[in-house]
């Protein structure tokens, strides 16, 4: 019975019209994302292309085009829930026996952007792995939990007040369609975890450390919530 209710809930969620933050952006920022020649995220993609060779990824994986569709089905399960950045680090650590690039370092973002680009335009397709269920439920709970001195949950902004304004910026629906992405405010590239940290400090709560399982749980929930939406990596955001 509970399973049926959950299925209906998810169905309801996907049937509803969902909107990427892209739709809320100015025409200039949209053009910047649309035009590869103007999208600064492509600089990281180019760096990723160079690293794909120099960091030895091509030796096992061949052409990066073989990574098509991969970014659309993460986080996945491998002993524990693992996100795409974690998977790349795992290859470096376990298979190449080297120290992985730090999370959100230029190199890690470059490789993730390159791999993400291979799935641009493809629908987000979370894996149907029952072993992910506990983390998915935890992610949803974290999404609905009030936090910080402002005592606000993610849902209060991104579900209840999506489309409204908060100090000059529109509140988007928080779909993780474009990561890693170039944010004008950052003047650089950043991961979903960096974005989530921004939202956590925004309500004056202590963000989790980079790589914490809580982020992977939240990402699992956000990806499930965005299932079917097109990937935009590397997106541009204000």
């Amino acid at each position, binding site marked *: 019975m509970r399973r049926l209710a959950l299925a209906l809930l998810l169905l309801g969620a996907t049937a509803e019209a969902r909107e990427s933050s892209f739709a809320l952006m100015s025409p200039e920022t949209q053009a910047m994302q649309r035009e590869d020649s103007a999208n600064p995220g492509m*600089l990281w993609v180019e760096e990723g292309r160079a690293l794909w060779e120099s960091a030895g990824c091509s030796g096992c994986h061949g052409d990066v085009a073989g990574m098509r569709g991969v970014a659309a089905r993460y986080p996945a399960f491998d002993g524990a829930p693992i996100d795409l950045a974690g998977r790349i680090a795992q290859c470096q650590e376990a298979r190449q026996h080297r120290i992985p690039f730090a999370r959100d370092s230029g190199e890690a973002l470059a490789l993730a952007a390159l791999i993400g680009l291979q799935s641009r335009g493809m629908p987000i397709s979370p894996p149907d792995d029952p072993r992910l269920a506990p983390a998915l439920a935890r992610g949803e709970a974290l999404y609905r939990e009030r936090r910080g001195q402002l005592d606000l949950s993610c849902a209060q902004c991104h579900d209840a007040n999506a489309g409204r304004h908060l100090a000059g910026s529109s509140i988007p629906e928080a779909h993780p369609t474009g990561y890693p992405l170039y944010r*004008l405010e950052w003047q*650089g590239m950043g991961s979903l975890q960096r974005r989530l940290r921004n939202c956590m400090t925004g309500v004056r709560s202590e963000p989790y450390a980079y790589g914490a399982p809580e982020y992977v749980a939240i990402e699992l929930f956000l990806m499930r919530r965005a299932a079917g939406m097109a990937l935009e990596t590397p997106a541009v955001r204000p």
Partner: protein
Amino acid sequence: MARALINLPRTARRGEVIEIRTLIQHVMETGYRPRADGSVAPRDIITHFTCLYNNEEVFSVELAPAIAANPFLSFSLVTAESGILAFTWTGDNGFEQTETRSLTVT
């Protein structure tokens, strides 16, 4: 070396106006921004960009501290003959980078 992206047609007709777009990775640190410890991050910007078309300057620009990181520049030129376009960015701390592209004019 900084990553740079240059977008222009590979071939064009003589006398055609072509659009060139360049994007380069650079922090463009203004020199006014306080760091976490209260000290001010020293200025580190690209100050100058030129485009040479067969060694003749066809476009140049001075860049200022208020310009965003990873500056994007777009300009157009009228094609004359086939040849080489050389793009050079120079800036603080000895920053200098040149990229070249060939253009076939028919």
